[in-house]
Each structure stands twice: as C-alpha cells, then as structure tokens.
C-alpha cells in the first residue's frame, strides 16, 4: 500500500491532526474552566458557565488520551523519552487534570457554598495549569531538551524540572494560557446570553491583544534567537528506526532559514496571526460562531508553525544532538504504522460523525432560567 517513507509522513500529519483536535476542543474546555470563577459571580452564573461544556468535556478529553496513545504507538521512543524525561512536569499536568472529572461531577451534588466554591477553584486549576505546562512543553520542544540515548536505546534525561522554566519557555506557557482562555471566552460567548455573554465578550476584547502581542514576541524570538541543529547525515527515510544511525550538528539560529527554504510553510504562521486577529475583531463585536471559527483556524496555524518548524525533528537533544529523534528514525515498524493507518481511517470519521450528532443534540444557549429549571439533572 504505502511505502515506509510515505506512511511515516502520513503519520506525522495524523498526529498533527490529533494534536490540533485536542487543542481546539480541550482548548475551550480549559478556557471555560479558567474563566469560571472570574466571570461567574453567583452560583447560578457559575452553573451556566459549567454547563456550556458539561455534557461534552469528557469526549473532548479523549483527544488528549488519544494523542498520548497515538504517540506511544507511532513514535514509541518519543513517548518514552518525553514522558520520562519531563517526569515532574508530566505529573503536574496529570495531577491538575485530576480536578476536572470530580469537579464537574461532584460540585453540584451538595448544596453548600463552601463546597461549590472549592470545586470552582479546583476546576480553575484543572483548566489553567495544563495549558501553561503544555505551552512550556512546546517551548522546550523548540529549544531542544537535554537528553541522550545509550547503546540499548535507553533514554536518559540530563536536566531538571527547573531547567524547563527558561524565559522563552515561560513565554510559550503564557501564550498557551492566553490562547485557551481566549478560545474559551469565544465559546462561552457563543453559548450564553445576557450577563455571562457580555462578560465573555469583554474577556475576548481584553485577551485578544495580549495573546497577539505575546505570540508575536514568542515567534520573533524563535525565528531570530533560538538555535536549531542540522542533520548532516542519516540512514535514509525508509531505514529501520534507530536514532543513533545519524549525525547531527548543533547550529546557530536556523529557524528563519528553515522556513525560507520552503516558503510555503510561512502560510502556517500567517494563518495563525490572521485567524487570531480576525477572531478578536469579530469576537469583540456581535459575531459568535464566525469568531470561534477564526480562533480555531488561528490556533491550528500556530500549532502547524511548531510542527513545520521542527520538521523532521520530533525531539531535539541539546546535550547529544545525535540522539535527537526524527519522524524518520523514531517511528514504529512499517507494519504497525499501516495497521494504525487503517484503524484511523475507519474510526476517525465514525468518531467525528457521532461527536457532531451529540453536539447537535445538546446545542443551544445555556441560560440561568434553564439551569434553575433542571436544577437536579444539570451540573
């Protein structure tokens, strides 16, 4: 069917698609949770906010689970190196996600203001820490990570948790948080009326410029001042996966020339900025669905910029450049990639179809009156 090189490239695209689907769907769930205690003053207002995502956040979270599972299956070495290397950071993401299932489901089960307020801040943590940490993670993917592989291809991490918090990575963390909060505000505005709708619109108006400025700073920093290594020799794009069969040299700031070598890749950052600018302009006015669509395109553009920029790297090693993992030498076997391809081709459309149906069923403005009427069934 597909030769090894082609299927490796297809999977690089697929994983990009899953990552973007995760960022777009979980993105607004995160944002809504961040905004929850900030925009909702009373219990009823907060329940309106929670119920905009109450019926669907769980399905959205599966994109994260699938992203993890797909990386495990398709790039086992990346899964192993990244998750064990960034041990403390990954566990902090995990611990902060713990607040969400219980927060959504348990909050409404007891009518006590202290209880409910505590869970509101729990949901805030669950919506705020993950995008910050994942932003920091993306920053570190661009900077490269200090790790090496030994002769058995066992990964060793040569840094500490605190090394992850460099200024550039922290800036990426800020971008991550602003992006999900902005996206979440647009979603909230779309699905509510009255007071919450108006506060969400104010949030959009304020967050938009902050996001655009921080994103512009991060991108120009990356293009001008972040080092990018170069592969000088590798076994070939269809060779057996062994990352040590290549030579890589550390080089100076190379991101700009990497993009200029294939100028069409510049469409990605352009899409990112254009989408987010339009989302802001439309979103601070009356537009709901249109603005949300624009922010979705914008976030997809930003993530594509990261993917294109790294290509063909998946994880860059700063301490032993030869150990860097690329999509050509860190993938699963040819047979497994083909198997995964067919499973995906069959199940992706099915999942999208029923997800769409579920959204259609539950769609409609969440209002205070509705929340009070269904007080015992809604969150």
């Amino acid at each position, binding site marked *: 069917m597909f030769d090894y090189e082609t299927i490796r490239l297809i999977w690089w695209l697929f994983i990009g698609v899953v990552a973007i689907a995760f960022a777009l769907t979980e993105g607004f769930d995160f944002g809504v949770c961040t905004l929850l205690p900030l925009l909702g003053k009373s219990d009823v207002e907060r329940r309106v906010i929670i119920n905009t995502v109450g019926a669907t956040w769980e*399905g959205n979270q599966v994109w994260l689970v699938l992203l993890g599972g797909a990386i495990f299956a398709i790039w*086992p070495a990346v899964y192993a190196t*990244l*998750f064990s290397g960034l*041990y*403390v950071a990954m566990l902090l993401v995990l611990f902060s996600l713990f607040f969400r299932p*219980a927060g959504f489901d*348990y909050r409404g089960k007891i009518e006590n203001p202290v209880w409910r307020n505590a869970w509101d801040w729990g949901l805030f943590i669950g919506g705020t820490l993950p995008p910050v940490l994942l932003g920091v993670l993306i920053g570190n993917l661009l900077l490269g990570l200090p790790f090496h592989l030994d002769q058995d291809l066992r990964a060793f991490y040569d840094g500490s948790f605190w090394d992850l918090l460099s200024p550039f990575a922290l800036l990426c963390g800020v971008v991550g948080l602003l992006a999900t909060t902005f996206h979440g505000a647009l979603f909230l505005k779309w699905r509510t009326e009255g007071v919450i709708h108006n506060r969400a619109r104010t949030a959009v108006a304020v967050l938009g410029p902050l996001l655009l400025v921080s994103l512009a700073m991060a991108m120009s920093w990356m293009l001008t001042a972040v080092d990018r290594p170069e592969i000088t020799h590798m076994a070939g794009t269809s060779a*057996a996966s062994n990352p040590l069969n290549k030579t890589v040299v550390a080089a100076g700031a190379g991101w700009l020339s990497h993009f200029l070598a294939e100028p069409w890749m510049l469409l990605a950052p352009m899409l990112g900025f254009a989408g987010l600018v339009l989302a802001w302009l439309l979103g601070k006015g009356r537009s709901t669905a249109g603005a949300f669509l624009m922010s979705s395109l914008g976030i997809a553009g930003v993530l594509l910029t990261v993917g294109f920029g790294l290509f063909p790297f998946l994880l860059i090693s700063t301490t032993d450049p030869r150990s860097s993992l690329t999509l050509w030498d860190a993938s699963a076997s040819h047979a497994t990639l083909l198997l995964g391809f067919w499973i995906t081709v069959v199940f992706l459309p099915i999942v999208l179809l029923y997800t769409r149906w579920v959204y259609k069923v539950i769609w409609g403005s969440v209002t205070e009156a509705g929340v009070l009427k269904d007080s015992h069934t809604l969150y």
Partner: protein
Amino acid sequence: MFGEDVVMLSRMQFGLTALYHFLFVPLTLGMTFILGIMESVYVMTGREVYKDMTKFWGKLFGINFAMGVTTGLTLEFQFGTNWAYYSHYVGDIFGPLLASEGWMAFFLESTFVGLFFFGWDKLTKVQHLVVTWLLAVGTSLSALWILIANGWMQHPVGAEFNYETLRMEMTSFADVFFNPVAQVKFVHTVAAGYVTGSMFVLGISSWYLLNKRDIGFARRSFSIASAFGLASVLSVIVLGDESGYTSGETQKIKLAAIEAEWETTPAPASFTVFGFPDQDNEKTDFAIKVPYLLGLIATRSVDEDVKGLKDLRNESAERIKRGMVAYAELQKLRSGDSSEQTRQRFDAYKNDLGYGLLLKKYTDRVVDADAEMIQKAANDTIPKVALLFWSFRIMVACGFTMLFIFAIAFYHCAVRNADQKPWLMRMAVWGIPLPWIAAETGWFVAEYGRQPWTISGILPTHMSVSSLSSEQLWFSIGGFALFYTVLLVIELYLMFKYVRLGPSSLHTGRYYHELQAGQAH
C-alpha cells in the same frame, strides 16, 4: 543497572495506582449494562419506575465513573513516565492496542456519557436507550483492548525482536488479537465487572427492603440484579476454569505457584485445596489434596504432567544460558558483524534473549555471568508462592460465595418471596465488598504471578523502568497518595449520601423521603 529502590518504587507506584483504578472499573462495566437492561424494560413497558431506576442507579454510576476517568488517565501517562524502556521495547505492539482503545472505546463511552445524563429531555425514548447501550458497549470494548494488551504481556505472541531497532516488533496483529490468553481474560474480567455491578445493586436494594422503604423500586432492582448477577458469576467461574487451562499451557510457573506445586508429580496431578506453602524449604505443610483435579484443570487429561516449580526453575536456568548466547550474538550484530552465520545463530537463540536479560540485574556483562549469577537469576523466575497461593484462594472463595448469594436470591425472586427473607437481604448487604476483594486479588495473581517479567519471557521488570531517581518517585508517590486519599474520602462520602437518599434524590415526589416530608406537613 538501576538502583533496586527505583525498581521497587516504580513497581509499588504502578501496583497501587492500577489496583486503585480497578476499584472503579468493574463497577462501571457492570452498572452500564444494568442501566441498559433497566432502561430497556422502561422502553418496552413504559413504566416510569424503570426510568427512575435508570436515573437513580445512573447517579451512583456517575459518582463512580468520575473516579474511573481520573484514575485511568494516570495509567495512560504512567507507561511513558515510569516504564520508558518498556515503552520503547514493546511500544510497537502495546501502543497500537492502547490507541485502538482510544478510537473504539474511550471516544464512545466518553462522548455518550454526557448525553446519558443530560439527554433525557432532548432525545426520544429509543434514542436515549441507544445512547445508554452505546455507553455500555464502549466500556466493555475498553476492557477488550486493555485485556488484549495485558494478555500479550502474559503470553507474548505475534511479535519478534528486531536487532536493528533493538525492540520487539509486531509480526501478526491477528495473533495478538486472537491470543487465547487475552480472549479468556477479557470474558473473565468483563463478567467480573457485571458481577460487581449486580452485587452493588443487589446489596443496596436489600438495604432499602430491610428498611422497608421504596419497596417497589427496590424489589425490581433486586430482581434484575439477581438474574444478571447469577448469569455473570457463572461465566466468571467457567471462564476462570478456562483461564486455568490456558495458564497450564502458557504460564506454567504462575500456575505451579498458585497451586504450590513444588515437585512434578506423576500424572494426573492432584489439586492442593489448602496448605501452608513454605518457600525456604520448598514444600507445602498440612496440604489437603484432591486427586486428579489439577491435572484435569491444567491439561484436560489424566495422562499429562503438570510441571512443578523445581523443574521449571531448572528449565529457566537452561534458558538463561541460551539467553547468554543470544546476547553475545546480538552484541556482534550491533557492532556491525551482520554476517549470515551471526544472524542465523542469533535467530536460533533469540527466543531466549529475555532470559539473558534477567542477568542484567546482577551484571552489566551478561556474557561473562558466572554459575552463581545464573542460579540467582533462575531463582528470580520463581515467585513468592504463599502470596499467590492465598490470593488465588481468596478470589475463588469470594467467587463461590457470590454464586451462592446470587443463586438463592434468584430462586427467591422466582418464587416471589425474596423480600420476606431478611437473612438473604442481610447476606446481600454484607456481600457488597466481595466482588472488589475478588477483583483485586485476581489482578494481584495475574500481575505478581508474572514477575520477574513485565513481558513474560521477553523483558524483565528491572529493565523496564525509566531512568529516574528515587526522589522523583517519592514525589509522584506522595502526589498520588495525597490526591487519591482525598478523592476516595469524597467519593465514598457522596456514595453513602446518595445511597441513603435513595430514589428520593430524583425529586420526583414519589419516593420515601419526600413522602415522609409530605406526611409531616
């Protein structure tokens, strides 16, 4: 290699988080099916009480489901964070199974669980019923994929070692999928989940009946639970026996340890019902044996041997020596000597490579291991017998006790006098913990019984861990202990609160607490 403490702490963390996760999984498996049955009756008969049953038991299911989701995330992360070399070594086989679980199961259950709770007024009766059944199918499919993955860890088929990539790679997906160990484990485990749901509903309904409240509601719930529970517990036991048979073929050491079978005895082997295994002297004190039974379970014959632990240990020692040859040839291949002769010799020995890796615990220079190291590594292949022996017996005892409870409950439902038998209802209330004890001890037997391997015969546990420090592990174990304890307290508090409220929590005005309040006015 790594410090023993990192290996121990990694194992402890995985064991605790996996066993903790499995406090919630079986109830989810069982409850979704029971909800499907209750709602089907509602749609067929149109009687509101069945809708109320679906909604109320659904509330309890929801409290449990949230914990299942929370603790399931941990396992997805943990292969990468704590078992990185494992992930590299077998990701080619294990990864696609987890990803398939995502595509086919997690999306299904997680997408429809929201509609189950919030779709009552937005869907037709039949549409909602379909949603509930999709939720049930999703949870069971999730068990299917994870048990195929676990079955592969117990009995790895359809894969071989690739010396270029230094890992196992899949050679046949069909072999992995239709792995006999996996298929048997799947049915055994989901049926155990159905038993858990049934025991939960049976016990709580009995408590309402004992307290003479919401009689009609509780009696109907009791009937459904007794019938579904009886069918399920029978499948668990039958499939458990099937499990014994497949273990006899594929996991000989585990089976021999469960039975405290130290010596190979002439066929047919007898079954040790009871006794005190003595690891140091390699014998079992005060053993009570049933002639022929083990031979029948493990080999389905009266003329085949069931190997004892001492002989199995000698076999391990032989395989370790072959594994050293495989390792030596692999070293040659890696240093660039890929001549025909080296490859053939490697291929001839590579099935025992994993046994060679057992020596890595004692020396980095596997090829030069001495007789003492080989003996130590061979000893490692024999687990602590008493732990397995007793865990297994506790599991079986729980299973048969539940069979007894369900059988009597079903009989009295059939003759329509179950709610006049307080002793039966008390037994059902006190029986609630049994399925959990059985499930936890069952997993302990399956996983501890596989030691010293993560992938049986392929990858030793001490090789599988990530390159971490014990400080990092203490950080994570501390975090899990903190979060899991707090969450468990909250979950149990809510569970008890809603069980006490009963169907009155639906605010329909038709049930006990609301009727009491109505009378008071």
